């Protein structure tokens, strides 16, 4: 069972292979709407990775990351379709993506500074206000943002004469960017920075006494989180080829938080599950009859189902679905090993850490 190929356990390689096949298979086998939805999943994954850094790892509750998505989204929409720059004209979509991230990051840093003084529930309140403020502010400066009418854009087309539909191209682009952004997040969380964030989350007092600069690491978390949200917002707008202020209601910010919690706080893989669920759960909830409570059908009422699922998850699986899966794998392994009469593997300890939000090690070891 410890067979390895090029240093990797065979099991991991098989899983990676399956994942790759599923990943490439999705846009080839699903219809255009479904492909589009899966591209949106990628955007949500990126935003949730950002929120995970801020809330999951550094322990700062944000109900307002949707505001950073708004900044990113509007950066892209305004530069690419509303306000041509002198000499350059409209900025091509591709270039607006990193710009969107940077502008959002700047705002994130700025907001991170007053947020330094706010803890726990107060930060939640302030970011809640931030989330609520986005839509009316965008509406207020309608000369600049286009107001209620929103900004329409041309849909993105595949470059280099690639033989892909628009949706397929968007799917691959979004997931490629998600993959690219996963790597630095992953590395950061395993580095000094990640350990500093977790130390701050677990006890600010202890973190300070071991020489960690709260100001630096907390604003850094805000900036990076906002950067990810900005990129996600930009991709979201490019996918939809449209943006308006109502896309950035409180619900968006809450969706991110819900995705994070359902996926699993402070877990590297949580955002992927979270992204999938926040895009597809409401869709199925609306399509299917939903579950029934006596004579009342909850079909078409994703709010109610979301709320109930959320409460059940924080109660029964406080570490989210990834935590649950981790527990399942541990249970399976311990059973299998008991059956063989083998000594228990050290693996459970690693899994424990992953689900407890300790060292971000892989769930599937």
């Amino acid at each position: 069972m410890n067979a390895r190929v090029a240093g990797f356990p065979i099991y991991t390689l098989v899983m990676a292979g399956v994942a790759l096949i599923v990943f490439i298979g999705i846009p080839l086998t699903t219809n255009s709407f479904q492909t589009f939805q899966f591209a949106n999943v990628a955007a949500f994954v990126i935003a949730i990775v950002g929120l995970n850094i801020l809330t999951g790892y550094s322990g700062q509750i944000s109900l307002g990351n949707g505001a950073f998505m708004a900044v990113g989204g509007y950066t892209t929409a305004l530069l690419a379709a509303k306000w041509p720059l002198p000499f350059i004209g409209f900025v091509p979509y591709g270039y607006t993506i990193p710009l969107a991230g940077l502008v959002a990051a700047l705002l994130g840093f700025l907001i991170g500074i007053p947020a330094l003084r706010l803890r726990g529930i107060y930060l939640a309140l302030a970011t809640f206000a931030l989330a609520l403020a986005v839509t009316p502010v965008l509406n207020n400066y309608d000369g600049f943002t286009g107001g209620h009418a929103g900004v329409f854009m041309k849909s993105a087309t595949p470059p280099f004469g690639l033989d892909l539909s628009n949706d397929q191209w968007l799917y691959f682009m979004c997931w490629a960017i998600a993959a690219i952004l996963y790597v630095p997040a992953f590395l950061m969380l395993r580095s000094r920075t990640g350990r500093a964030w977790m130390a701050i989350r677990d006890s600010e007092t202890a973190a300070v006494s071991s020489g960690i600069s709260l100001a630096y690491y907390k604003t850094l978390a805000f900036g990076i989180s906002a950067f990810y949200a900005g990129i996600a917002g930009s991709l979201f707008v490019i996918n939809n080829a449209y943006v308006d202020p109502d896309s950035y209601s409180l619900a968006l910010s809450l969706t991110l938080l819900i995705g994070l919690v359902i996926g699993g706080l402070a877990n590297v893989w949580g955002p992927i599950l979270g992204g999938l669920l926040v895009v597809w759960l409401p869709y199925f909830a609306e399509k299917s009859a939903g579950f029934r409570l006596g004579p009342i059908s909850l079909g078409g009422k994703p709010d109610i189902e979301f709320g109930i699922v959320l409460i059940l998850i924080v109660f029964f699986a406080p570490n989210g679905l990834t935590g649950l899966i981790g527990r399942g794998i541990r249970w399976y392994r311990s059973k299998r090993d008991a059956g063989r009469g083998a000594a228990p593997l050290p693996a459970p300890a690693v899994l424990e850490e992953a689900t407890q939000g300790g060292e971000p090690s892989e769930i599937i070891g």
Partner: protein
Amino acid sequence: MIELVSGNPVQAFVQQVVSGLASGAVYASLALSLVLIYRAMDVANFAQGEMAMFSTFIAYALITGFHLPYLIAFALTIAISFGGGVLIERVVIRPFEGSSVLTLVIVTLALFSIVNGTAGLIWGYVFKTFDSPFQFGAVHFQGLYIGYQDLGIIGVTLVVLALVFVFFRYTKLGLAMRAASLYPEASRLLGVRTGWMLAFGWGISAAVGAVSGMMIAPVVFLDPGFMQPVLLFAFVGAVLGGIESPLGAVVGGVLVGVLLALLGTYVPGGENLRIAMGLVVIVAVLLIKPAGLFGRSEVRRV
């Protein structure tokens, strides 16, 4: 409800302050209901506004569906809201007693979602009008024009606040609820069932919130989202007054109402910027005077 009767700038200003007092009274009662729960269990209840919204829909149903007179519907709604609050605490909140701030925030957000969705399921998302219990018209006073509506809102709110005050200050149950929230261990040793005190706290909070919903509903339209801005301004008021102080919540709520009325009049585009202003006030207060106007600056918890 705002009507300028003369070009006199001082009068116009006072006029705005008066109309701000009315909406401030609504923020004040919702802020008070937030603070009641915050004091009892250190959690900001993000579902408070939705609970009040739901209560208002109940009143709406009692009046339009069952054709009850307003006063009876009003009283019945308060009673139902109290029961609903108790039930919510027992069923939804109790399993999470002692959980982390993040968990409690998420649970109240989930509650937000459930209550909002349920209201939409039952009453739909079409705007409804909620008739005012107060006569149309206004009092003329020194060139000012004060609507019965505004006066009514202020009057009802004052009565409710006075009742809440008397309850907590002068009744045995109110005393026990205060003791239970401040000193849970010592209270249990005196035979107080602290779990139920918490549930009653949710009940009273829901009842007070219901009043704020029923008062503002005739001014705005009724739909499942109508209390969300009110919730935000109530939060702002509570933070401004000191989130642990009931008196502070009331004063803070009123101040926010007046501030917003002035903002709407004197700042161009002020209507859209109201929420952003709320954000600015929250952040400014927390930075300058984190305990709020009426809060004690001592830190109770680590």
